[in-house]
């Protein structure tokens, strides 16, 4: 994605010609000697923007700051997603306030990313990732890298579970 426009796919030698590319970008990976390669992400990262996390919170009138993903779910066309985090803090008038429990947020992918209006700078950028991205039949598990700085998204639905025991 460049300047907000979707501009490329992960490709293999088989699929690159189908989208008019003269060469594969080399996205085929296999988890081991006993698995065939599949196209899959290795490192998919958000480029850093500007400013510190403190600046971003200071610039936010009314919001929720969430940290550390702990659950994830998305539909098979990657539109409707939901994430849960370990903890969150309320933001009121530019200040971090009380801690919130079991924070969750849900969105529709292009709408969510379309609502991104700030990304923190390189000083806040960390390479996160998952050790257990699952794909393929028979199954393959591979590590992925996802670098990001904190970012702000507007009008996001939060606290979606609201379930009783």
């Amino acid at each position, binding site marked *: 994605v460049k300047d907000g426009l979707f501009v490329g796919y992960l490709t293999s030698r088989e699929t690159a010609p189908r989208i008019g590319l003269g060469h594969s970008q080399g996205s085929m990976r296999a988890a081991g000697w*006993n698995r065939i390669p599949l196209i899959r992400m290795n490192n998919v990262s958000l480029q850093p923007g500007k400013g510190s996390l403190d600046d971003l919170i200071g610039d936010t009138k009314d919001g929720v700051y969430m940290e550390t993903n702990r659950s994830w*779910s*998305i*539909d*098979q066309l990657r*539109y409707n997603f939901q994430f*849960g985090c370990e903890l969150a803090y309320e933001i009121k008038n530019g200040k971090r306030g009380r801690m919130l429990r079991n924070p969750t947020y849900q969105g529709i992918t292009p709408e969510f990313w379309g609502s991104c209006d700030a990304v923190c700078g390189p000083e806040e950028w960390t390479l996160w990732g998952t050790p257990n991205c*699952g794909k393929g039949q*028979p199954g393959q598990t591979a590590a992925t890298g996802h670098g990001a700085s904190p970012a702000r998204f507007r009008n996001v639905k939060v606290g979606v579970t609201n*379930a009783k025991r």
Partner: protein
Amino acid sequence: MPSVEQSKDIIQRTLKFSSAPETEVHVGGGRFSLTRFANNEIHQNVEERNLEISVRVVLEDKRTARATTNRQDDAGLKKVVEQAIAAAKISKPSKALPMLEGGKEQISRHVDEKTEAFGAMDRAKAVVDIIAACKKAGLTAAGQLTTKRGSIGNYGDMGTYAIGNSKGLFRFHDETSTDFSLTVMDENSSGWSSSFGSRISDLDLAALTERAIEKCKASRNPEPVKPGGWTVILEPAAVASLVWFLSGGFAGRSYHSGNSWSSGFLGKSVTGPKFELLSDPYDPRNIGRPFDGEGLKTQRLSLIEKGILKSLTYSRLTASKQGTKATGHGPRLPSSWAGGPSSLIVGGGKKSVEEMIKSTERGILVTRFWYNRLVEPRRVVVTGMTRDGTFLVEKGKVTKGIRNLRYNQSVLEAFKNIVELSAPIRSEGMIVPAMKLNNFNFSSVTKF
């Protein structure tokens, strides 16, 4: 797949190389054969044959460790024993109990020779027929047909099918199994079916194909409905998706440490009275290995009866700490995992899905759930999406396909709202009925 005699030979040769006071040898693996198809053609035909020998040693001072190899020659077995001993010497002392004494051998075989002989060409011919049916309907097929032998898993994990130890214990379990899933797609709809079994004859591929095709056709041009609390008719696969999230909570170690959803509820209601759950590796519909990671015979357990938590699973060590009997559900040691039940069977009823539809004024019929994840462990709140055949039911009839919905629902709460149950069938690795539930929480809709 090594025979009983060949497995004993591997174990005995390994034990001879060990000078440790206690040594345990696991043999795992077998054959995993899969044909995959997409866009109405076979694009993958794979078979893995592999064997793993895993050795645990316990030294004089109770230090313990495990090392693993897939070499079966003497030099390889000698090396894996040396690696286990070297690792044990730098490990912490274990609190594990002494290894099980030998006693009587336990050998079980559930091998279907026709399934074992069902090779790549047979799978291809079966898939060709499935694709032909989908093409005839103007639709696109994708899916997989798998046969297995032994304990080899889907993600390349070898599992365990035989255990022997330096106290004369020997356990052996051989089985064949099959698995099938099919997704049928049109421009704006899809349908799905799936089944598994011990034998290729357990899979009625023609009926499963017709089912997926009908769902795809019937859910064309889906319309959105509003999220909220709905009466739902969940087909068995959707129910199984929810039940899996309960299964980790029955381990005694988790219960007594206070970090299970079940903690504090033994003998008390955890769901409604219409929900029952059994763990039974001896049921012919869902054969499982009948011994645990230490070789202890696995018991049949009634886990939830009329909504009440009746039993927990116990490894030998946790049982000893709690002053109760081990149930044969312990993990392979050493392990940070607490173990748990296998071969699950959910209690059913007598209503068919068609009867559940007829009795519904307004509701949603769900074929399956997808990308289900645990959101809150204590209340077993799970989220996921419907897919591949989601329908509106109005005044006793299926009236149209609807766009897929996201649910956020406590599984325990959902099973308090059971209205009706069907007869259980094989689905998603367990024996499970369809269920009609009231007030199931859908929290949002997607675009298709």
